[in-house]
């Protein structure tokens, strides 16, 4: 697929480059002509009304969804049908889900150690040490032998973040990480994400937490109807949106 189409022009520090990408769910054209360059260390917040394709876009980056047209190049590896490329990209890209998706039959520590042991082939002792250090970083070192079902939503999401970080990813994708949380737990997850942002991680975050966007994002992308409508630095995005649809969306989420 697209083997002979020309590679997207890559600036030196470009870590993700998406060029003319389209995706359909059956007959439904869910992503239309997406072009996006992400440079190393850049933090992007993607927002938009539900059904606008924002989750689908970031899920295409680690091939949880398959795109049908255009190119996606991650860290110099082009996403094709080739399973080897997909596995390479997935081990470089961490993902945090709205529903946490921890493995309920494994303890917190086992959840976090699993991929380093099986994918990175790390020795157990080393993986455990690394897992503990990340669990400390997300501030749950004392819960390691519990099962996910015994933790609160906020704690589960922080474990999920630690689980992704343990693979030492170059890029982190966040798919509405706080949408399934009770209000009093949103802050503890956002704090972890802000700390991660300060460490220089490349992040793509689908969220409606505009405070988070203002605090850490370099760019805010607004999507609607499967298209990127507008992309701006957060200050301009919130203070001076260009498109009517962006203005409408902002008025809906900010004034209620």
């Amino acid at each position, binding site marked *: 697929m697209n083997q002979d189409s020309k590679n997207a022009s890559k600036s030196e520090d470009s870590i993700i480059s998406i060029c003319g990408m389209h995706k359909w769910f059956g007959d439904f054209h869910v992503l239309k002509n997406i072009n996006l360059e992400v440079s190393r260390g850049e933090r992007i917040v993607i927002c938009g009304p539900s059904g606008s394709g924002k989750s689908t876009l970031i899920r295409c980056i680690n091939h949880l969804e398959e795109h049908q047209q255009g190119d996606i190049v991650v860290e110099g590896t082009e996403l094709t049908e080739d399973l080897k490329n997909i596995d390479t990209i997935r081990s470089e890209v961490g993902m945090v889900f709205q*529903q946490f*998706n*921890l493995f309920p039959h494994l303890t917190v520590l086992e959840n976090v150690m*699993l991929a380093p042991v*099986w*994918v990175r082939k790390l020795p157990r002792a080393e993986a455990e040490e690394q897992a503990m250090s990340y669990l400390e970083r997300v501030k749950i070192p004392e819960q390691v032998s519990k099962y*996910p079902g015994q933790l609160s939503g906020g704690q589960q999401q922080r474990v999920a973040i630690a689980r992704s970080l343990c693979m030492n990813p170059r890029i982190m994708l966040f798919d509405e990480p706080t949408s399934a949380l009770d209000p009093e737990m949103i802050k503890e997850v956002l704090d972890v994400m802000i700390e991660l942002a300060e460490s220089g991680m490349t992040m793509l975050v689908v969220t409606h937490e505009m405070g988070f966007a203002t605090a850490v994002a370099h760019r805010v992308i607004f999507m609607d109807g499967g298209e990127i409508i507008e992309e701006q630095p957060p200050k301009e995005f919130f203070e001076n949106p260009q498109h009517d649809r962006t203005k409408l969306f902002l008025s809906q989420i900010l004034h209620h």
Partner: protein
Amino acid sequence: MTKSFNPQSYEPGTHPDLPPPAITTGLIGWIKTNLFSSPLNTALTLISIWFLWQILPSSFHWLFTGAVWSAVDRKECWAMMDAPRDGACWAFIRGSLELFLYGWYPEPERWRVNITFFLFGAAVFGALRENIPGKKYWLMFAAVFPFLAAWLLFGGFGLEPVATSKLGGILLTLVVAVTGISFSLPLGIALALGRRSRLPVLRAICVIFIEFIRGVPLITLLFVASTMLTYFLPPGSSFDLLIRVLIMVTLFAAAYIAEVVRGGLQGLASGQYEAADALGLTYWQSHRLIILPQALKISIPGIVNTFIGSYKDSVLVLIIGMMDILGLGRARLNDPDWLGLAPELYIFISLFFFVSCFAMSRYSLSLEKKLETGHQS
């Protein structure tokens, strides 16, 4: 009204936990809620007690106090009772126990059967028991046990060969059931995964296999095994009837297990697959570590249900002339010494199946409880 029933007497935030009213807990509470909660319920309880009062004493007399436990034939049994058939003649079962257990297995070689039974117990115990030292070695032992048992029972490699037609009774029942159960689980899992595969050819093969086997009665498959299979095989090739039957029983159970496991796989939230994929686990890694442990846990009731079903279905082999416990028992009923003792025989066989099936059922319940980690993803 006492003070404890008046919430106003506590400052906000200081209300203590009070014990529940005595009538709702304990034995009295249980009896009241379960047996006498309404007039209809009370009537049903009284009728049940009356009914039990009518049948229990006479049943108890027939089964135990009036029963004869040792005699050489039924006439001696009758002679020892107040009236013929006044009690059960358990002497019949006692006298036939060896036949029921070993079938026609040659007497000097029966130590091999005993060792097999013993090793079977050890394998089951070691494989199912949690927190046992050297669990890994127990599992390895359980995995090689079927082959070890085959060697012990049928000989070769230094042991006197014993023809498979010598197998009968409980030994045959267990050979058929244990083979069916232990080989159908891995085969069923493979079929379930194949049916969900992305490869169209593999998927089609699995679907056709499952639907064909499920759509045909087991007896038909057994007749195919006993008679028709010889037409399909190259002329001159013969392979043992018992092996043909074991293959059919295994395939039959596997088709059912496959559908049960597929249900478990579909019951899993798609987020589990996505999280495993997103971490970079390969297909086999994610199935071994994430998907199957959870899908099989969901499927335990269905899997054990299928196991119990195929265990009891093993008696169908008597239709193609193999003498399992039921077949052998029925043949024994025609023995002039023990004519007409059908109730004793069927009670014994029922008890045998009930005990083993009930044990499987209880084990599966305890397994479900143990694997419960308090989270439905």
